[in-house]
């Protein structure tokens, strides 16, 4: 019996802040003009991408107490921007990263549901948690949440959102409710809120829930709550381990093993001729990690300005002045043990003969898929064959043209091999991801009856 052919799906992550976006190339456009978002989303839709994904920023990044000035910065509010993109796209999913800590749950649920109805069932919520007082300085409640409680708190917020989305009965049709649903109260350690269902359900029932988070706690949270997980494991071997772990956790959470779709983030560098690959990759990396970025990266770990540091020379011989790194440059360095990491970097650099810039390129950028469309397709085939990922969330290194080669060259190659669809299978994001009904809208019988054979743990 032959294994059924699986397909690879693609999502695209429009990076809001990151050194991975090359802003100094001549073909680099605005990071914030709506036109850049429109072009990228429409190109993705032409390439039959499953989802268009926006991150969220709640405080502008800082470097050693001053605004970080080397990376792209400035991004729109995700849900508002996706509402605008909803009217210039038709089938692609619209994923908004939204923090559970600095949004009021019922208000957030209402806005996500509004986007879901407006877009004809294409909305998703990428659930993230933040808990530091530094971010809290922009919000009414300040930094009120302990790091240890971030997931129990997030579970509360999701539970409230689902109450809002489930509040209106299915038989409400034609814009008229037979009766207005009764208000509900939700009282926990974190919230005492009063809500009421006021909107009709979207065609996909609920917005799809995405989650990223690689700790054991984060993985369990995803296994209990999410429908798609963004992972950092994009190479075959770690991806296989990750999939086995996630599927075991998903089963343990009482869900079918394939209930949680896996989309690692990945960078693609497509060239026309195999002989260009090495040069193109080097060009991209050197534009991502400029000499200034390399120095700032080291300063961030050391916790001090190092004005005389030569990016082409070795790491400082003295240890960092801090033991634990802070939050101000985003998740990359969160609570990293600075002295330990510095020693490991120094050893690694000596062993490989790396300059600071070489080191930063190697520790801060992904390997990515690089080569001709045919070579990349060769690399992707085992993923399709084994099903260890459901798709890749592509982080383009160029805005807005960063998907052009992928859509024009790689997608047709994958289609020819039968591992990429030739049309969207459905109208909603939930259909296109092959997801079941939202978790709170299934009966136990539904779940058992619909476990596909292919979902067994590898």
């Amino acid at each position, binding site marked *: 019996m032959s294994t059924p052919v699986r397909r690879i799906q693609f999502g695209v992550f429009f990076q809001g802040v990151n050194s991975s976006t090359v*802003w*100094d190339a001549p073909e680099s456009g605005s*990071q*914030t*003009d*709506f036109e850049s978002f429109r072009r990228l989303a429409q190109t993705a839709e032409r390439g039959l991408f499953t989802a268009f994904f926006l991150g969220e*920023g*709640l*405080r*502008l990044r800082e470097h050693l107490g001053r*605004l970080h*000035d*080397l990376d*792209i*910065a*400035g991004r*729109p*509010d995700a849900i*508002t*921007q996706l*509402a*605008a993109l*909803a*009217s*210039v796209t038709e089938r692609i999913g619209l994923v908004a990263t939204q923090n559970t800590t*600095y*949004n*009021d*749950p019922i*208000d957030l649920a*209402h*806005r996500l549901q509004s*986007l879901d*109805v*407006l*877009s004809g069932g294409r909305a998703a919520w990428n659930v993230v948690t933040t808990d530091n007082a530094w971010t809290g*300085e*922009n*919000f*009414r409640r300040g930094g009120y949440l302990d790091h240890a409680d971030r997931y129990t708190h997030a579970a509360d917020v999701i539970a409230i959102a689902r109450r809002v989305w489930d509040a209106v009965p299915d038989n*409400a049709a034609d*814009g*008229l*409710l*037979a*009766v*207005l649903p009764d*208000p509900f109260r939700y009282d926990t350690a974190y*919230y*005492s*809120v*009063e*809500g*009421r269902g*006021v*909107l*009709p359900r979207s065609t996909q029932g609920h917005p799809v829930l995405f989650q990223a988070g690689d700790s054991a706690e984060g993985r369990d949270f995803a296994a209990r709550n999410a429908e798609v997980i963004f992972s950092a494991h994009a190479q075959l071997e770690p991806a296989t381990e990750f999939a086995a772990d996630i599927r075991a956790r998903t089963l343990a959470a009482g869900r079918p093993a394939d209930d949680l779709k896996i989309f690692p983030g990945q960078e693609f560098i497509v060239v026309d001729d195999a002989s260009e690959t090495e040069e193109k990759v080097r060009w991209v990396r050197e534009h991502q990690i400029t*000499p*200034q*970025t390399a120095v700032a990266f080291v300063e961030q770990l050391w916790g001090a300005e190092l004005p005389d540091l030569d990016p082409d020379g070795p790491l400082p011989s003295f240890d960092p002045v801090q033991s634990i790194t802070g939050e101000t440059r985003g998740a990359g360095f969160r609570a990293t043990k600075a002295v330990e990491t510095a020693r490991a970097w120094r050893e690694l650099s000596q062993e490989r003969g790396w300059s600071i810039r070489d080191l930063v390129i190697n520790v801060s950028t992904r390997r990515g898929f690089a080569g001709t469309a045919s070579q990349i397709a060769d690399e992707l085939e085992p993923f399709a064959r084994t099903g260890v990922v459901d798709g890749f969330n592509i982080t383009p290194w160029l805005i807005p043209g960063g998907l052009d080669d992928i859509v024009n060259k790689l997608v047709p190659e994958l289609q020819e091999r039968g591992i990429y669809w030739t049309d969207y299978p459905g109208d909603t994001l939930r259909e296109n991801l092959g997801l079941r009904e939202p978790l709170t809208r299934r009966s136990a019988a539904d779940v058992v009856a619909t476990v596909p054979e292919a979902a067994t743990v590898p």
Partner: protein
Amino acid sequence: MSRTFAVIVELDDDLRTDAPASAIVRVARASERAGVTAVSFEDHPTAPGAGAGAASRSGARFGRLDATLRAASVAPITSSIGLIPVVHALYNEPFHLATQLATLDTASLGRAGWIARADPDPSIAARHGRGPLPASAADAELADVVEAIRGVWDTWEDDAVIRDVATGRYLDRTKVHYADFVGDRFSVKGPSIIPRPPQGQPVVFGEPGSAAELDAVLLDLTLPGRDRPAAHLNASTDSTIAGAADLPELLGRATEAVDAARTRLAPGTLIVVQLGFALDSAGLSALDRLADERHHTRADARAIVTGDPSVLVDLLTALARVADGVRLFPASLEPDLDELGRAVLPGLRARGVFHSPLAGDSLRTSLGLERPTNRFESVAPDPLASNAQTLEAAR
């Protein structure tokens, strides 16, 4: 001085359709074709009629999709009309509101406004998990929220993105500032996470008498103390019907109200009069249409001008001499919007009191408002002055 008279049309959404998004797109496009200055989007975060007794009433309507999102959804498919959502601002996060509205302004290339609403309704507070604000404190809170949002918008100077390849700097951090707003109930550090919006400051509408810093106020035009022709209205509304014979009285009231407001407002604040309307259309009289229960009218005290389109042309022509604009509430969206574009706006243009916005105009431009300077803008040193000082020092 030639004054721009603005015609804003309220596009209340109607979810009695399988495809609310296409309905919103349709009416927004119809408004742009008609040539109105701007469209507004009413909002209330809880269900309409959610008060006592509503639960037992059959046929209750759904609530509205978030107004800022509805406005954003029509931004890329329109090019000249202003987009003005109602935003309830007492309990939300001011930082989020600032970036949401900046995003609307960016996506619409500078056509965003907002109606800053301070409704101390306990049900709105409850959904945010907060105790209700006493009505006496609501306006002070709104003033704080507006000030914080204006501060956040200005945190990036217009030329903060420099993309300086030589130094590797994307931003000039001396041109990005902390808002550092501290109010009675909240504080916002800043800076914004999105650059300064195209208009610098999207246009802020509010109630006359508010302590908030407003660009424009909305003033209801009413005909109080009049017997309601009950046969023509459903029981839930207090609106009064006005016809051609009522124009002198309406105009007199408008003039009085505008003059009174003008004395209390900061100079340059626009005054927009709010008015319902229902026009005879396709052989059906507006009064007959209003009598039909299926066409809902709104539960407010605003006058509804009815009759032939020329009645509205006459009233608006006269209003243009006293007020800066009008926000019109169509009794029924489609027929009334049609008549507006077919007869009313051409009539106003013919009399020279109204100009439709041009593609690419910002809402500020359409309303005749200046683009505000940035409160954080560093005072650029005058190169000649510094030369003079250098020369002075050298002597």
